[in-house]
């Protein structure tokens, strides 16, 4: 009787053991698969944000230079908006996907950028190619 009890336990244990063995192997494979898949998505999303923020940043810095020395009242208004945009961009942690106000801040930056463009009376075209790269914003 004791022998068959052991057998029974052995069978149940084996069940667990084989499942565990497969699990171990699958876990390793899954870990590396997840890493690869995650990285691919992450790279795309990060690049998208980086591209957009970079554009605003380059645009704002360049215009700060271009407006340098302009001293009319209208120019000082432009400059104020420009500085405020630059400040927002510099505070924005564009490379941190865990930042909880990412979308909120991004929308504020976009709004400020639009305001600046209308003040400058320009319609910039960043020429972000829509096809393939997935970088359009």
């Amino acid at each position, binding site marked *: 009787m004791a022998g068959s009890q052991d*057998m029974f336990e052995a069978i149940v244990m084996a*069940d667990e053991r*084989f*499942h*565990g*063995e*497969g*699990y*171990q*192997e*699958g*876990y*390793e*494979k*899954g*870990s*590396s*698969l*997840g*890493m*690869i*898949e*995650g*990285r*691919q*998505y*992450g*790279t*795309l*999303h*990060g*690049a*998208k*944000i*980086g*591209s957009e*923020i*970079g*554009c605003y*940043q*380059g*645009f704002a*810095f*360049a*215009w700060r*230079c*271009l407006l340098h020395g302009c001293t009319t009242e209208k120019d000082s208004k432009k400059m104020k908006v420009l500085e405020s945009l630059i400040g927002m961009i510099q505070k924005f942690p564009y*490379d941190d*996907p865990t930042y909880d106000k990412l979308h909120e801040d991004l929308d504020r930056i976009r709004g400020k950028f639009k305001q600046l463009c209308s003040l400058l*009376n*320009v*319609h*910039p*075209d*960043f*020429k972000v*190619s829509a096809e*393939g*790269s997935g*970088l359009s914003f």
Partner: protein
Amino acid sequence: MSWFRAAPLAEGPGEEGDVFDEEADESVLVHREWRSHMQRRVKEGYRDGIDAGKAVTLQQGFNQGYKEGAEVIINYGQLRGTLSALLSWCHLHDNSAALISKINNLLDAVGQCEEYVLRHLKSITPQPHVVDLLDSIQDMDLCHIAPAEEKIDEAKDERFYENNAEFNKNCSKNLSGVDCSSLKCCRTQERAHSESPSLTWILEQTASLVKQLGVSIDILQHLKQL
């Protein structure tokens, strides 16, 4: 896969002889059933393991890729933004069409560079999997021991399996080591001979353009990272 070598090991020494001795044929059947059940358990475990492993690393991979993508691409964005500012400046001041089309060409060139870099950023990730390689080797039946030949000395068998496992472990260690270093090497090479030449060219062109416009070269100061 491991169940090929694991399943035969499952029966303890003498089990077949002691319990199923009276009905030899039946024992083969039972044996087969047991094997297929255990194989199924291993497969189930494998699937569960894949899901669990993926769940753990997906976010980690995403965060890593995100940071890298953002850090690399922001430089191209800055160049693009600077050129766009110059373009809008030209439009405002009615500069010559030649200059405007030059800026447009440069913007296109930046776009191409950016796309190229992004493609390579994405494609450095897939690397050959040691597990896959080992699987295919095992599928070739090189290490497979047919169930009918199981009567050989159990202890000897076990040693063989141990060695085999050890070998596999070492193998994966070595291979992944090689993977990493060659990957890094690949990456730096990519940086060296794909990004720089055309980007340098774009930057030079932009600098001469800035001079032509009579704007201070300081306008390109923030692009130093490129």
